[in-house]
Structure formats: structure tokens, C-alpha cells
């Protein structure tokens, strides 16, 4: 795999005579899909009125104590299994101490030295092949509240709805080498978690954010360069832009004979640049220590095994099955498995329909339609059942591919059974040779000069006759039969 990844990493920054490689590691914060918070029973529903989903525990009232939400533990273990990672049967919740207005306890409950999930891996499908990205760990922690600075000119307002919501921090090894790999990695991670139902991966709602660690080194060097951490980037596009800016900034410094300071930086999305937030010297001393309000978390083999049993087929296995069972190309399989809803849709369509035609129609017409309307496949205006029927109509020759496209367009506005549409609009393909012969005779009779030209050698005119015949049929004629009959008649 190493040799492979060398070949794949073609993202190089050139300065003067030097080629620089970019080393990237991600700390992804994924919100656990759970109705209630990590240590309280408050709701986690997105978009509620400020401070309406806050319990006494979330607001850190005197004498209030955290109680672990078992469901969140299951979700973390499930994700760990999906990342093919080691599940730690004993993990510890620590307090990370710092003051901020939206951190009611004055500390965040997190896992420091003993996370619930250890080393694992994620496989990326890149244009030139597969690459394995190492996972360092996954731990559970509480989210903070939200400080709102732009409502009141004098005061900062605090919304504690997010306070205490469970997050999984998934830390990768520094195995990523380009903005593109980061894109693929985030999407793969999101895909796995959506398959598992452990995170909805919704970046607009903040369910998935990342701290991005970037360093550069001259190609061929073995030692890692000094890294900078870009905090809290909330879209893949911004991650890519931030990496590009930051890597070039570091290369410029090195080329000028300078050295990189280890620091935490922020990405300014308006100016498209990173800027220093705090240096290593100013780094917080978080005074981590085990939270005495919570006992060490012990989980049993049974607990883990029960979760393992509930794991659905994941994208990698599904891809393999699609290739082997349905004879799909790796490219097609990748597209169809990348999103669990797409794969479900695909499998529902092919249950009763031809795989090849289905694949083409889903990745072609349907994706274009969804893209056009900016819809998720789960919100598709055409149900899998109806698309399957449409494909069967094509397969058995009831309608031509061309007619199918107009039926598809009608289906896109009203999810109707295509059989009914074809019936109502009289779109059924004309495959009766006698009828078609009559139709072709008419075309030949109406164009004696063109027939003459054709017979004297202008063979290109054949297309003209096909077109006229199709036109005369209102597009419903079976094109294969038209071809055959025309060939005979024009001989």
C-alpha cells in the first residue's frame, strides 16, 4: 500500500528548485446521532429557540451531576467498529478545564488518555487506486454552547442548546497528502457514519467539523515538519482552501530561510487566508484530570459483540459485492455505494430490473435530475419502484430510450407509474412490422428524389429516412425495426 500511496500523492508544491510535500492530519468532530445529550436527557434537536433545550446539568447548576447516556456509548463503539478500530473496554472521562462564557461547567468532559476507541483505518478510493488512512483514536466529548456576538451591540449572548451534546472526535494519523485526499477522506468518513446511523454528517448544521493539522517537508525527507493546527473548519471546501493557503504559506517561510512556529490558526473564509490565533507558548494548560463525578467506563465483550452484530454492510463490502455480483465497474460501484441512500435506491431498482440499464439511468438521468433540483436521493421525486418499471419498459421494448426520457420527465413532476403514463399518452413503441411498413412506404413515396439520390450512392441519406419515419410515428416507432425495414425497401 505504501508504494501505491507514493504514486497517488501527486500534490506537490514547487518553489525554485524544491518540491514540497504536504502532510495533513484531521481531527474530525462528528455529532453523535442521538435524541438526548451525552450526560443529560435534554433534546438535541437542531434549530430550536435559544436556551430551550437546556437542563440544569447542561447549565452547570450547583450540585448537578453528569450521568452517561448509554446510547451515545453504543454509537461511539459502533463507529469504532465501522472504522475497523480497537474498542477499549475501559475508558475514562476527563475534565478539560478552561474558562469561556459558553462553557457552563468551566470544563469540558472529554476523554484524554484513555479513549473509548483506539487505532483503526479508513480506505480511500482515489483516481489511481486505493489508499489506507490510519485512525489514531476516537473519543467522546461534550460540545460547548454558542456565543453570539452580533445581536446585541453591548453584550455577548449565550445559547446553551448545544451545550452537552455528544461529539465523537476522530483523529487521523498524518497520512493525508493533498486537499483532494482530504475531500475523499471526509466524504468516506461521513459515508461510513451515515451507513451506521451514528452521525448525520450535516455540515451546514455543524454536525461535522474539523481541526486541520498541516505541515510541509521537502520531497524525500523522512522527518515531519512543524505543524500548524487550523481550528474548527466547517466545510470541505474551506478545509481544502485552508490547506492550500497554509501549505503555501509554510513553503514560503522555509524558502526564505525561516522556520515554522507551532501554533493554532484560524481560517478567515472572507479573505481566504489563515491567521495566527495563539502560539505554542500561549497554549492553554487544560489541567486534564479524571472526572470524579463519573466512574471509569467499563464495557463488556457482550456489549461489543451485540453492537458488532448490528453493523450493516458498509461501503467497502458493499462495493465489493456490487462488483462481484452485478458486474459493475469499480467506478460505478463507488458512486453507488458512497451514499447509503443511493445504494438502497439502487438495490431496490435492480431487484426487478436489468442491472446495466438501471446503473446507467441512476448515475445518468436520475443524478442529473437530483443535482438540478438540489435534492438528496431520499427526497427523489421518482421512487425506486417507478424507475424500476420504466427500466422494464425499455428492456422489453415497450418504449424506446428516447421516449423513456420524456416519460422520465413526466415522472419527475409527478411520481406516477410509467406504465400508466405510456398508456395515457399513447407512447407505446410501434413494433408491428406491417404498420411500420405502411409508414415507411409513405415516406419513400413522398420522397422520390431522395430515393433516387440514395440509390445512386449517397448512402448518408439513410439517416434522413430513419428520421422521417420516426417523425411520422411520433417518435414511437421501434428504431431497430425501422432500420431493418428501410434497409430492405431501399435495396
Amino acid at each position: 500500500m505504501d508504494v501505491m500511496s507514493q504514486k497517488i500523492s501527486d500534490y506537490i508544491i514547487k518553489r525554485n528548485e524544491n518540491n514540497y510535500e504536504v502532510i495533513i492530519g484531521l481531527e474530525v468532530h462528528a455529532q453523535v446521532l442521538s435524541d438526548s445529550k451525552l450526560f443529560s436527557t435534554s433534546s438535541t434537536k437542531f434549530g430550536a429557540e435559544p436556551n430551550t433545550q437546556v437542563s440544569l446539568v447542561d447549565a452547570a447548576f450547583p450540585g448537578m451531576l453528569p450521568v452517561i447516556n448509554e446510547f451515545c456509548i453504543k454509537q461511539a463503539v459502533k463507529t469504532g467498529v465501522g472504522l475497523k478500530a480497537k474498542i477499549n473496554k475501559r475508558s475514562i472521562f476527563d475534565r478539560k478545564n478552561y474558562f469561556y462564557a459558553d462553557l457552563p461547567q468551566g470544563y469540558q468532559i472529554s476523554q484524554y488518555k484513555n479513549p473509548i476507541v483506539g487505532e483503526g483505518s479508513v480506505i480511500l478510493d482515489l483516481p489511481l487506486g486505493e489508499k489506507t488512512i490510519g485512525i489514531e483514536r476516537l473519543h467522546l466529548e461534550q460540545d460547548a454552547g454558542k456565543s453570539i456576538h452580533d445581536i446585541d451591540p453591548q453584550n455577548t449572548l449565550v445559547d446553551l442548546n448545544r451545550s452537552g451534546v455528544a461529539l465523537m472526535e476522530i483523529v487521523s494519523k498524518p497520512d493525508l497528502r493533498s486537499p483532494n485526499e482530504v475531500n475523499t477522506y471526509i466524504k468516506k468518513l461521513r459515508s461510513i457514519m451515515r451507513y451506521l446511523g451514528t452521525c448525520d454528517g450535516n455540515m451546514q448544521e455543524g454536525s461535522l467539523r474539523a481541526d486541520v493539522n498541516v505541515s510541509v517537508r521537502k520531497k524525500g525527507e523522512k522527518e515531519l515538519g512543524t505543524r500548524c493546527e487550523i481550528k474548527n473548519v466547517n466545510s470541505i471546501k474551506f478545509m481544502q482552501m485552508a490547506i492550500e493557503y497554509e501549505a503555501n504559506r509554510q513553503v514560503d517561510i522555509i524558502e526564505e530561510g525561516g522556520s515554522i512556529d507551532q501554533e493554532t490558526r484560524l481560517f478567515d473564509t472572507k479573505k481566504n487566508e489563515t491567521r495566527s490565533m495563539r502560539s505554542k507558548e500561549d497554549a492553554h494548560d487544560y489541567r486534564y484530570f479524571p472526572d470524579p463525578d463519573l466512574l471509569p467506563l467499563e464495557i463488556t465483550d457482550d456489549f461489543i459483540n451485540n453492537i458488532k452484530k448490528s453493523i450493516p454492510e458498509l461501503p467497502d463490502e458493499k462495493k465489493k459485492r456490487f462488483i462481484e455480483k452485478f458486474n459493475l465497474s469499480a467506478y460505478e460501484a463507488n458512486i453507488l455505494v458512497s451514499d447509503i441512500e443511493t445504494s438502497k435506491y439502487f438495490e431496490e431498482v435492480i431487484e426487478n430490473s436489468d442491472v446495466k440499464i438501471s446503473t446507467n439511468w441512476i448515475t445518468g438521468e436520475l443524478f442529473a435530475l437530483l443535482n438540478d433540483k438540489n435534492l438528496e436521493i431520499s427526497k427523489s421525486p421518482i421512487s425506486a419502484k417507478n424507475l424500476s418499471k420504466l427500466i422494464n419498459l425499455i428492456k422489453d421494448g415497450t418504449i424506446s430510450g428516447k421516449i423513456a426520457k420524456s416519460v422520465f420527465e413526466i415522472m419527475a413532476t409527478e411520481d406516477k407509474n410509467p406504465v400508466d403514463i405510456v398508456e395515457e399518452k399513447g407512447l407505446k413503441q410501434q413494433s408491428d412490422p406491417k404498420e411500420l411498413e405502411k409508414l415507411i412506404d409513405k415516406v419513400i413515396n413522398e420522397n422520390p428524389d431522395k430515393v433516387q439520390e440514395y440509390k445512386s450512392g449517397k448512402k448518408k441519406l439513410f439517416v434522413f429516412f430513419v428520421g422521417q419515419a420516426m417523425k411520422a410515428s411520433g417518435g414511437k416507432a421501434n428504431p431497430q425495426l425501422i432500420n431493418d425495414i428501410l434497409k430492405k425497401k431501399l435495396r
Partner: protein
Amino acid sequence: MSNILDFTLVDLVEKIKKKDLSSKEITKAYVERSEKSKKLNTYITDDFKNALKKADNFDSKPDFNKKLPGIPIAVKDLFCTKNLRTTAGSKILENFIPTYESTVTNNIWNEGGILLGKLNCDEFAMGSSNETSFFGNVQSPVGEKLVPGGSSGGSASALRAKLTPATIGTDTGGSIRQPASFTGIVGLKPTYGSCSRYGIVAFASSLDQAGPMTQDVKDCSLLLSVISSYDNNDSTSINFKRGDYLKKLSKSIKGKKIGIPKEYRVEGMPKEIEDLWQKGITIAKEAGAEILDISLPNTNYALPAYYIVAPAEASSNLARYDGVKYGFRSKGKNLIDMYEKTRSEGFGNEVKRRIMIGTYVLSSGYYDAYYLKAQKVRRLIKNDFDEVYKKVDAILTPSTPSSAFKIGEKTNDPVSMYLNDIFTVPINLAGLPAISIPAGHDEKGYPLGLQIIGKAFDEQNILNIAYSLEEEINFKNKIDDWWM
């Protein structure tokens, strides 16, 4: 009227059940005496009007199946009480009114108890003399200008002065047992995990335990049965079978093995305490117990370990008092300035001292040397107890190395103040139950206590030993109502 105040808790329950006394009569007696005892400064907030109303309500519809039917009780102001101000003895919570009730106090009200008011204590339970309270020091009914001990000083003083028939305190390093010893009452710190910490203002989470403070061992058994419960809201609460401690109380300690740890014979301990200890040993032996010399070799390290672990947890537990959400807030130019002013003005000196110690020992570069090492010491101390409990059923020691001292005598010498807890702290570190019972007086007539330490969850055993000793000791209360 005066004889109401001479009854024990168990007596009062009996009188109410027999309808010899009404809840109103009892409540009124305690309210009236409390009103006349303001000089002791035991109450931070009283709830007398409501208490009398609740007593009336009880009398109009009495439920005699309750364990504390219509009994008025004042509690330490560290327990959050719904709709009644809860301060933890601090300016930072001076005007804090909880919307919720602690599990322990809730257990008392569910058994028919009636809240009299909130009793003074050291600020955030940090102190051994009740001199760190923002609401002023408490005087001991034992003598003028004498400290009642701490941090549950208001509770001890109020009980001894007969302002409440029983009370509850919290004990992190001796905060129930030391004031109990100083004022001549019974105080019990249960096994860690027995009483829920839900709704108790936290000092050091891994050490804090609520417990009863009562006139005698029977009362203690009754109140412990009421307050000890398993609670889902506290992850450190332990689900073990809790008995009816009063029902099973027995004076028979024949054949019980009681250990006497040589390490508790500390240098400079007054002879009267040595004599008291000897007296306890003799009585236990005469009652049929077997006395064994034992060793708890790591005892010396308990106090330093405690003064790392407790401040470390406190420094983090008290971070929530930042002026943002509730409690005292001082105006600042910006967020950091507001934090600094709020916490500088809102916390007293002892609390600040412990926050600083705690912050220091958790800092990177010092964590291993202090906090981690202290945790290891804690484990060794627990191992010491585990080892001796293979041979003995309980351990007998003095409760404190000295009797009560004068107000102001030790305020400028925190280390000498901390030394007060030398016999009580190891028990908290090991999470064990221990009871302090009044056992005699020093030459000035100040009370002295003996401590009986038990195995985890073996409260019944130490209550039985205490009950047996109590009868023989026959401690006589010497209160002259000097403040009235």
C-alpha cells in the same frame, strides 16, 4: 414546653405517633428557641414561617407511617433546597435560589420531615472552624468565642444548642465528625456512594458524603436510614442493600474485633485525648470486644495527599461560579475582567487558597509530581485499611487531635488548621464509614470525641459499637445557654 427540646429525635417521633405532641408544638418550640439564639449565628436562612405552616398541615392530615412524621429539621446550607436560598456559605451564591431539591433533603421531606432553615457552614465546606463563611463565624454553644468546628459548624452548633432535633452535614475530610467531636454530638460519615451527592454543592466530588448529626446513636441510625438511598442521578451512587439501621441496632458487640492503629498515637497529642482513647478501649473490652493492635503504615501521608486531591477537584468544581449564569456577578470591561472581578470579590480567602493549590497541582509539569502521586498514596491508604480489615471488624481512634479552640486562634495558620483533620481525612480517602461519638471532656470542659471506623457498607456494625460504648460512657451535656 422546655421538655420538648430535651427529647431525642426518636423520642419525638414516638410522641408524635402517640399523639402526645403535635408537629406544631414541636416546630414552635424549636422556632422560638432558634429566634432567641441568633447570637450563635447558626442560621444563614430560616424558613420558620413555612415550617409552622407545614406543621399545621401535617397535624391536620398526619401520616404516622413516615419515619420522621412532622419533625422539623434544619440542614447545612450546602444542600440545595427548592425555592429556598442556598449559599454554601459564599458571597458568590448569596442570592442563589435553587429550582430543585437535593436527593438527601428530598428523602427527609418524603419521610415527613419539615425544613426549619439553612445552617451556616464554612464557605464551600472549606474549613475546620466555620470561620470562612461569608455569613460570619458560628459560635459554639459549649462556650463563648469558641469555634464549633467545621465545615458543618452551623449544624453542630444548632443541634447542640437545641435549635433543631437532628441535622445533616457533609463530610469531605472530617466536616461532620470534627464539629461533632467539638460540640459533643454524634456525627456519621457514611461509606462513599451511600448518600446521593445530587443537589449538594460540590467541594471535592470523590470525597464528599452527606451524613447525619444527632444527639445520640439511635437518632443517628434513624436519620441514616432516611437519607441513605441509591440514586440514578449520581453516577457514583452505589446500589447496595440498605438496612433499617435503627431496627437492627444492638448493644451486643461480644466477640467483635476492634483494631487500635499505632500511627494515630501522634506526637504532641494531649494526654487527655490519650486517656479518652484508653477509656474507649477499656469499655469496648468490658463489653466483650477483642482489642487488637494494628498498623496503618501510610497514615502520615493522608493529610498531604488529601490537601492535593481535594483542592484539585475543588479548583475544577468551582469553575462554574463565573458570574455568567447565576449567582454574584461583578461588572467588568470584558469577559476576562468580569471573571476576575467576580471571582476575586465572590470567593473568600480560604476558597481562593484552595483553588490556587488545586490549579497548581493539576498544571502540566506538576500533575505527575502532585496529583498523580497523591492518587497513588490514596490507593496505598485504602490498601492499608483493606489489609487490617482482614483481621478486625472496626477501628477505634480519637476523632480529633485536640478539643475546640477559640475563634481567631488558628485563622492565620492554615497548616495548623488543616492538622485538625488528621484522624478523619484517611477515612474519606479510603471511602469508608466512620462515626464520632462524644466520649468525655478536657480540663476546660470542652467535649472530646471517639471515632469508630468501619468496613465499606458496614454502617450497622459501627453504629452497634457506638451504641454499646455510648451507654457506658454516659456523656453528660454541659450547656449553660450562655448566649441567651
